[in-house]
């Protein structure tokens, strides 16, 4: 067959695609389990990091063990009732497409050595380029913020991606998430603002990511308030 003929080109392209496709599928199968383990460990470390559990230098297996020992989980709905389900495996991405009333809301509870309880709420929203998510932990009064963790998929390094940095996350610690009955915790625009107990400084040049964090906080904290009223 001629190397320049159309038929040859098509046959050649097909063969190359088949070979590459089969190769990739095989490697994907082989590495799938390890990847899933990594994702699971990452989620558990994030939940533990929201209550500032020290994890530096811990291996994946150790993190999973600690998680199983110290974290309890329930699933609730926005009316404040406990519902069936496995909190850890709930995919927020899918839940957030449903109306609030139909969502299953995972709630993680951490108790420290002195028996003090911390409530960890997962959150998910949109930044500038793609999804952002995180965990926020509240003290036993269900109002004071104990710690937050944020992460993102494609925010700009140095701008929106700063939400993952300690300086940004540490600002939330000790702030009040409620103003009366209403959720009120906001990231302001840029730095150097007059702050009160419901606001933190934003990231200069990343206002849209900051707004994304705001609506994520407001929406996801709100959904738990009925349950929290029953607890109090």
């Amino acid at each position: 067959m001629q190397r320049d003929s159309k038929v040859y080109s098509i046959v050649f392209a097909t063969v190359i695609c088949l070979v590459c496709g089969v190769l990739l599928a095989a490697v994907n199968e082989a590495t799938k389990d390890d990847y899933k383990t990594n994702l699971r460990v990452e989620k558990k470390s994030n939940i533990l990091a929201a209550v500032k559990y020290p994890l530096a230098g811990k291996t994946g297996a150790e993190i999973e063990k600690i998680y199983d020992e110290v974290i309890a989980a329930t699933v609730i709905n926005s009316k404040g009732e406990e519902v069936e389900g496995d909190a850890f495996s709930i995919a927020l991405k899918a839940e957030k497409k449903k109306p609030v009333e139909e969502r299953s809301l995972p709630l993680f509870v951490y108790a420290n050595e002195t028996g003090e309880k911390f409530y960890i709420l997962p959150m998910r929203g949109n930044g500038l380029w793609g999804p952002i998510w995180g965990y926020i932990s509240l003290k036993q009064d269900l109002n004071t913020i104990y710690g937050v963790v944020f992460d993102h998929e494609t925010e700009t390094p140095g701008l929106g991606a700063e939400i993952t940095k300690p300086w940004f996350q540490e600002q939330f610690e000790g702030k009040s998430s409620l103003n009366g009955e209403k959720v009120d915790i906001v990231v302001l625009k840029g730095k150097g603002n007059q702050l009160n107990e419901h606001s933190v400084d934003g990231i200069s040049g990343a206002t849209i990511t900051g707004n994304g964090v705001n609506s994520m906080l407001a929406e996801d904290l709100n959904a738990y308030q009925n349950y929290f009223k029953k607890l109090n």
Partner: protein
Amino acid sequence: MSTEVASKPIKTSEPLFSKKNMRLLSDPLNENNPITVQVLGICSALAVTAQVKPAFIMALAVTFVTAASNVFISLLRNLIPGNIRIIVQLTIVATMVILVDLVLKAYVYDVSKQLSVFVGLIITNCIIMGRLEAFAMGNKPWASFLDGIGNGLGYAAILIIVAIMREILGSGTLLGYQVVPQFMYDAGFANNNLMVVPAGALFAVGIIIWVQRAQNKYYETE
């Protein structure tokens, strides 16, 4: 681009590590460095060099992809139809890149997270396509393999030098460990924020190009 220089065909009956073959490995390290002389692959050199660890992994990944795709293209060079050769090259490079991505995700997850989009962007690294077109399409697999490794290492060398400069000056650390001692800070040393942002890499690469060209007496000619 000046990549055509190295693309003379190599004769068949040579020993594996002949002088000529070794030059394929050593030339890109200095005289024909892909970043500083050929000026390819600059974008990733700016993007991933704020710290040494991701720079090192990126360099490894690019070296692997360049060498492996050079070999495959060289093996297929007499079969690839000329009219679809760029697409075939892309398919093979993309396959290699996804392989690297899958392996990173499974075995060094934190690094894969740090590199995030840059792994996918290996495919757009001009060094790879440049070497495929300029070298692998016209040379035997072994020579192409050496050429790929050589260019990968040349890229790696610059990436790591830049990353070392940036991490020490920008964060005072090396591979995450504090290397600038406290008394330096007491004496007035401050972490340079310019080195943390990509613009800092531009200065670092510029200085390297300057030093290297001054040493090699290399001058741009009209």
